[in-house]
């Protein structure tokens, strides 16, 4: 009985339980993840991190969330009213919907009803995740555009360009997996990894997926849309209170979703790792699958934190170059190579597993070697600023101070005469803003 058939006769009450359960799981994971991230990054930076609220500080993010709800909700005068209002909703919904296709456990029985621990199993499962992440971009772009402020607009454009650029690499890395599982349904992909995980078989795909999932979720070292030193807070600069909380929630739910998809596609999803199933058959129980699944997902979430604690932020042109000029061609070549290997294997000449693993190693060595290639030689510029022995550039001695540009006169556009509840005396005492 396939998972899809198993899920098809779910009664409504069971579907509702699963929906609420997955929703709660994602919210709890978000709260946990924020705290965990702060704690782990703190450990990496030799400081204690949050340790006041609740046992060992584990309720800190819950307290922060409650605090956000009681903060002032601000809509700037230049903002587009309805789009500003709807953008957090648009970015929040697909984040949750994307997770529903992920198989989080094996076959179980809930109140006597046989079912699988998965909300839906669609023949196009993987595409649903990709589609949802594309729709999530709308929330980002619209929020930046509707804020009526330059920083959010630039942040939103950067963010959108980044997400769509890395989505191509991500989609291409999944093609290899689909070629082996003969199906885009997520549960079939998990079942196809019964003998050997795809991380071994398709290591280049795995590497490309992991890199692009970090780019896709705008996380460090690819968190350019939120580069504080350049763009303040990125697309949600003008948002406050619960609207900001929704963006934050969507970002973390997206992280959980891509991590869950990574463990589904490459680490065998809910399956028992390292042949432990032969030790005790209870490990293969459907509910135990939930434990394995969460453990694998937490591994990827840890990788997110680890990267953030380790790597500096990339420059935007470097980042786009990595996406378009490195990841895309490598995945295209890899797809053709995988197709070739499968065709050769079907003609019965090679063992494709050996072949693919060798190919993966060769490709990895090639990539490593390419990192050792010297950069292109840059022409000496005679007018360049000389660099002293200390390595710091110093201005030339005959430096001319450039003329100061004329100051732009501010134009106050469409401001209402008197904003809502302003007290004239307060404004006067604060000085003219």
């Amino acid at each position, binding site marked *: 009985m396939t998972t899809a058939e198993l899920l098809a006769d779910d009664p409504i009450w069971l579907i509702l339980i699963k929906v609420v359960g997955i929703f709660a799981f994602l919210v709890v994971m978000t709260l946990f993840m924020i705290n965990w991230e702060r704690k782990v990054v703190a450990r990496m930076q030799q400081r204690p991190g949050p340790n006041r609220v609740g046992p060992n500080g584990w309720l800190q993010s819950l307290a922060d969330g409650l605090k956000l709800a009681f903060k002032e909700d601000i809509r*700037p005068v230049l903002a587009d009213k309805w789009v500003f209002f709807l953008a957090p909703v648009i970015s929040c919904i697909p984040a949750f919907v994307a997770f529903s296709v992920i198989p989080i456990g094996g076959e179980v029985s809930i109140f006597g009803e046989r079912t699988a621990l998965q909300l839906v199993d669609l023949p196009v499962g993987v595409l649903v995740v990709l589609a949802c992440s594309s729709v999530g971009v709308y929330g980002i772009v619209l929020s930046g555009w509707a804020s009526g402020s330059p920083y959010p607009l630039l942040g939103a454009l950067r963010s959108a360009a980044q997400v769509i650029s890395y*989505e191509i690499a991500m989609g291409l890395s999944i*093609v290899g997996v*689909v070629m082996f599982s003969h199906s885009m349904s997520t549960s079939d992909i998990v079942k196809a990894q019964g003998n050997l995980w795809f991380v071994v078989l398709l290591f280049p795909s795995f590497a490309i997926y992991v890199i692009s999932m970090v780019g896709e979720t705008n996380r460090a070292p690819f968190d350019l849309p939120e580069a504080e030193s350049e763009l303040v807070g990125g697309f949600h600069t003008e948002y406050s209170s619960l609207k900001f909380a929704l963006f934050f929630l969507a970002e973390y739910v997206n992280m959980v979703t891509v991590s869950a998809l990574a463990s589904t596609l490459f680490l065998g999803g809910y399956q028992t790792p390292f042949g432990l199933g032969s030790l005790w058959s209870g490990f293969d129980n459907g509910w135990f699958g939930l434990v394995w699944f969460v453990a694998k997902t937490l591994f990827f979430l840890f990788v997110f934190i680890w990267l953030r604690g380790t790597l500096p932020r990339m420059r935007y042109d470097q980042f786009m*170059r990595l996406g378009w000029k490195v990841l895309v061609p490598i995945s295209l070549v890899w797809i053709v190579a995988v197709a070739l290997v499968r*065709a050769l294997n079907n003609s019965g000449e090679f063992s494709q597993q050996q072949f693919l693993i060798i190919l993966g190693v060769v490709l990895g060595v090639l990539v490593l070697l390419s990192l050792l290639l010297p950069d292109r030689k840059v022409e000496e510029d005679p007018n360049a600023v000389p660099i002293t022995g200390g390595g710091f550039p110093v201005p030339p001695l005959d430096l001319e101070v450039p003329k100061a540009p004329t100051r732009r006169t501010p134009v106050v556009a469409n401001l209402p005469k008197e904003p*809502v509840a302003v007290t004239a005396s307060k404004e006067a005492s604060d000085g003219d*803003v």
Partner: protein
Amino acid sequence: MLQPYLPLVFMFLLAGAFALFSVTAAPYIGPRRYNRAKLDAYECGIEPSPAPIVGGGRMPVAYYLTAMLFILFDIEMVFLYPFAVSADKLGLFGLVEIALFVATVGFAYAYVWRRGGLDWN
């Protein structure tokens, strides 16, 4: 036929209800103490730049190019999926076809690269 998609609709409704409730409730739960500076565009405390962004605002054209390239490659990616699902059934024919397809796209890709469409300055 669309019955398998029903749970997705439930999830959509729950997430939508939660999000809509949050954005609607936000102004009523929190305090409301506005002043002019608070309602201005946030630019680290300086006077906001004069050009209104909404409507007459302009943005760098490079982003449009990225969007167009994305559509191109996204469609290519979507074409690869049906091939991947039935790669074994198609056999050698499928292999030759997909190699030709990737070569065609690769040609366009090389052209864009050569014309500097992938550079970011």
